[in-house]
């Protein structure tokens, strides 16, 4: 979230689309209802009528996978009706920038942007560029009238998304579209705010990143980024998925979103040179120009501090990806099923149910030599070898199950969706003989390190030079008890030598106050620069519990701690005009008074934009302004509607380019039969989507094993409209079989008017929905909806498309 949970109460319009907050983030509705009480309008856009929709002022249905069309229509409506916030756009976005005249758009190129290479399924982005002056500064037209400026190109591109065209794609009645557009578009004035609450309903598509881009563009047009009650708010699903992302348990990034080293970045200097964004604009802060300090401090936290600058502080000890190597989820299991992965850890995760195309995942596990599963409960991954259609005698995988502590049986911090790192205390000892996860990690560290010390082996230095100083070491060098505070302090970072900064001397061993003090000469450490300031000489900031709310907008600045540097609303310098005056004086986030900023921690402390010597407001981007036009996306600088890989219609109504042209196609790239997909195929005529329910969580490993919760949602179901039920001779409560090109599941039919048929391209399209919280290890509950979902990922992130695919449904014989 750019903003945070309590801030939802500051909105005048709330769009819940691509999420189902009432069911999956129920406490958020405390603030949704508070906003509604003050007159805010709640818009619910969803393929089905949900518990969220039940509280909405307006509900609009849409066919799964057509969000860009829906939102593209909104962009068109906003521009056509002059509802955008010109002053905001001129100050804080690249709407005024002039684009390369050779740049072409899908209206001209049948659904493609200029530069597409059909063989490589990749774009040459050279025309997706700004016109720049001799100094490299982008040329602009402040009036935003130049036909080559971003706003005019945006207008031209989305003029193709008329209400009539959109309705014919999404199946949303035209009057509902207009009503949503009108209400949302009403916030493009100073003093009004609209927020978007989205989740996996947007990310789990082949166009997932562009779904969010479309909304970000809308928020920038309306001036809704940086302000209270605004923002682009991803409602994250797991208690610490924000923290686990920040600490980068992901192939492509190191803690603090630093890129994983590449094979051709053969030295620290090369890493810094290649990965540091550059700008020639003196008005752009380009905060990532500090990357050298963050990577160097990370290396100082990871490795033996006896390593010196001559050793690149241990840079060579980090593993490096080949150029172009994608080691993301779908690729991981693709390699596993082909036998290329021998050993596997599933630590607090259940991919046999959560992975798209779960049958493929389950088969892949049979190819492993060994697997370590770490969990509270047995689950479908740990026990895959005795699952449906498995013959244990033929499966050679050795499996270890390590039982670990529940959340309240250990101490540490977790980061919520609003980026608040909150400290948890241990209430009781781990149950039975289960152990803390950190204890297990410490044991594995020590035992592997001992083997390398005693026996040698491949590149032992990476292991023996790792720093691991989290408590008192016994005579054998082993830490008996991991001090979690020592880990938290290492993440924050220390001064490794006496250092004078801005006239103040910081002593060796002191905790670094915040990331502005980190150095690239090896004198500081910080395991994750983004968390530098979370645990400093003032104490454990994450454990704070003050009720103070000095601004009155609900920032609670001394409750826990928020990254970065306790800034509660990101991009908050866009919440003010050029003079530092808040767009909304009733709900100010920051304001310039008496030569300094008041309110939230400002996004960089520079003066208001009208004053000399300041820096632009979007400090993380090299151009210093928010990107309405972004060459960073793989499939185009503006979003374009493409159909899901599996869809119910023959052609993309927008163009001759049916699917996102740059997605990696597993099946046609010489993939396996298990990856087959079936689009516009009468065997699988119905659109399907997956979701969660309030009463269960993720694959249900914890909640299926919580009797109070299982009682409320006891087994697998499929929801469908009375019309489809009638067509198929299904009555409410019937046991049905839902099948796709990858698998099938049995499910109890819930026949409900909450599902409606869609009229798309003159035909009736039916959609069904299934939860993915069940699995066979729990008796009589059914199995995962991910047995149906396809092997296909988003064009930028490779997040699987589990929210739109094709199925058939029949009553069980």
């Amino acid at each position, binding site marked *: 979230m750019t903003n945070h949970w309590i801030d939802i109460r500051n909105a005048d319009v709330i769009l819940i689309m691509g999420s189902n907050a009432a069911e999956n983030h129920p406490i958020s509705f405390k603030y949704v209802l508070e906003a509604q009480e003050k007159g805010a309008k709640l818009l619910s856009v969803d393929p089905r009528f949900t518990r969220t929709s039940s509280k909405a002022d307006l509900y609009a249905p849409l066919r799964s996978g057509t969000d860009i069309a829906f939102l593209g229509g909104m962009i068109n409506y906003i521009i056509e009706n002059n509802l955008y916030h010109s002053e905001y756009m001129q100050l804080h976005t690249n709407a005024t920038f002039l684009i390369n005249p050779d740049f072409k758009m899908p209206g001209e190129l049948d659904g493609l942007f200029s530069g597409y290479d059909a063989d490589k399924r990749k774009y040459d982005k050279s025309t997706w560029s700004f016109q720049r002056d001799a100094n490299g500064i982008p040329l602009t037209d402040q009036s935003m009238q130049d036909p080559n400026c971003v706003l005019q190109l945006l207008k031209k591109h989305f003029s193709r998304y008329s209400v009539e065209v959109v309705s014919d794609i999404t199946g949303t009645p035209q009057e509902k579209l207009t009503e949503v557009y009108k209400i949302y578009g009403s916030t493009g004035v100073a003093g009004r705010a609209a927020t978007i609450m989205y989740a996996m309903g947007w990310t789990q598509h082949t166009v997932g990143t562009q779904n969010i881009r479309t909304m970000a563009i809308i928020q920038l047009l309306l001036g809704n980024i940086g302000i209270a009650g605004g923002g682009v708010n991803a409602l994250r699903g797991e208690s610490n998925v924000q*923290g686990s992302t920040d600490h980068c348990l992901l192939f492509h990034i190191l803690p603090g979103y630093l890129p994983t080293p590449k094979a051709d970045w053969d030295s620290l200097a090369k890493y810094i040179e290649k990965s540091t964004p550059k700008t020639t604009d003196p008005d752009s802060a380009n905060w990532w120009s500090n990357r050298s300090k963050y990577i160097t401090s990370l290396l100082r936290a990871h490795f033996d501090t006896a390593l010196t600058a001559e050793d690149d502080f241990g840079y060579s000890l980090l593993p490096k990806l080949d150029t172009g190597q994608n080691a993301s989820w779908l690729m991981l299991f693709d390699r596993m099923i082909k036998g290329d992965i021998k050993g596997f850890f599933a630590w607090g995760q259940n991919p046999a149910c959560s992975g798209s195309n779960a049958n493929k995942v389950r088969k892949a596990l049979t190819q492993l030599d*060994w697997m370590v599963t770490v969990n509270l409960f047995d689950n479908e991954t740990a026990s895959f070898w005795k699952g449906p259609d498995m013959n244990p005698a033929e499966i050679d995988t050795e499996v270890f199950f390590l039982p670990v502590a529940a959340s309240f049986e250990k101490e540490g911090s*977790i980061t919520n969706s609003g980026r608040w790192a909150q400290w948890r205390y241990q209430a009781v000892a781990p149950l039975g003989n289960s152990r803390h996860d950190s204890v297990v990690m410490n044991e594995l560290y020590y035992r592997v390190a001992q083997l390398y010390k005693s026996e040698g082996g491949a590149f032992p230095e990476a292991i023996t030079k790792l720093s691991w100083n989290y408590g008192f070491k016994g005579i054998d060098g082993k830490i008996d008890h991991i001090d979690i505070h020592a880990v938290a302090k290492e993440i924050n970072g220390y001064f490794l030598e006496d250092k004078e900064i801005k006239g103040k001397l910081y002593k060796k061993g002191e905790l670094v106050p915040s990331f502005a003090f980190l150095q690239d000469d090896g004198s500081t450490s910080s395991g994750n620069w983004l968390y530098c300031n979370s645990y400093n000489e003032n104490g454990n900031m994450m454990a704070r519990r003050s009720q103070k709310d000095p601004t009155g907008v609900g920032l609670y600045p001394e409750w826990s701690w928020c990254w970065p540097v306790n800034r509660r609303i990101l991009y908050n310098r866009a919440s003010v005009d050029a003079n530092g005056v808040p767009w909304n004086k009733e709900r100010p986030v920051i304001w310039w008074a008496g030569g300094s900023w008041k309110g939230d921690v400002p996004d960089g402390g520079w003066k208001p934009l009208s004053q000399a010597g300041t820096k632009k407001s979007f400090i993380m981007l090299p151009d210093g302004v928010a990107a309405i036009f972004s060459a960073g996306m793989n499939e185009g600088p503006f979003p374009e509607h493409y159909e899901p890989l599996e869809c119910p219609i023959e052609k993309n109504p927008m163009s001759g380019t049916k699917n996102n042209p740059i997605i990696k196609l597993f099946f046609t790239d010489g993939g396996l039969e298990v990856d087959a997909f079936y689009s516009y195929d009468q065997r699988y005529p119905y659109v399907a989507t997956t979701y969660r329910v309030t009463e269960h969580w993720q694959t249900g490993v914890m909640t299926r094993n919580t009797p109070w919760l299982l009682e409320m949602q006891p087994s697998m179901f499929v929801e469908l409209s009375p019309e489809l039920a009638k067509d198929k001779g299904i009555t409410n409560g019937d046991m049905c079989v839902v099948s796709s090109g990858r698998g099938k599941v049995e499910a109890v039919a819930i026949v409900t008017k909450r599902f409606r048929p869609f009229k798309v391209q003159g035909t009736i399209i039916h959609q069904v929905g299934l939860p993915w919280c069940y699995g066979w290890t729990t008796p009589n509950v059914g199995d995962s909806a991910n047995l149906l979902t396809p092997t296909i990922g988003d064009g930028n992130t490779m997040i699987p498309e589990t929210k739109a695919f094709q199925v058939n449904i029949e009553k069980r014989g």
Partner: protein
Amino acid sequence: MKLSRRNFLKFSGSAVGVSVLGIGITPAQADAKPLAIQYAKETTTICPYCAVGCGLIVHTRAGDIINAEGDPDHPINRGTLCSKGNSAYQLRHNEKRVTEPMYRAKGSSEWKKVSWDWSLDQIAKKVKATRDATFMTNNAKGERVNRTDAIASVGSAALDNEECYLFQKLLRSWGLVYIEHQARI
């Protein structure tokens, strides 16, 4: 930080004094049932489910949990909780919790209980054996990569920050690049 009982009561609800009841309502019996959480230890924690990050108070007595409910001081949830948050107690009082390490051998059709020491030693040996057998010092182009593509890891958004940090540090020291978790799916 622990809450004082006084605060807990103050934020939990309005104080109730001696009742004088309305027409037709006569109390027939004094109901002086002591509060189950009286004198219990209170520990603050954060809900393990979604990322709203609601505060919970866990009441413990004699080393076990007797009650878990919303933290009334928490500015987000103000003592409230959804069905999942309210069920945290059953994550502890739960016969399905696995409390001993288990092992499944090649071709076996059952789990068997094993010791921590044995399990950890076995895993350490397997990590080393697989790593040593598959370690790539250089790639096909001759560039230094120092990695293994034959060990992978998924998880976890259910870990604490400190554990996430430790886990990625450990995995990367072994040379893994196939490191993924819930954020990707």
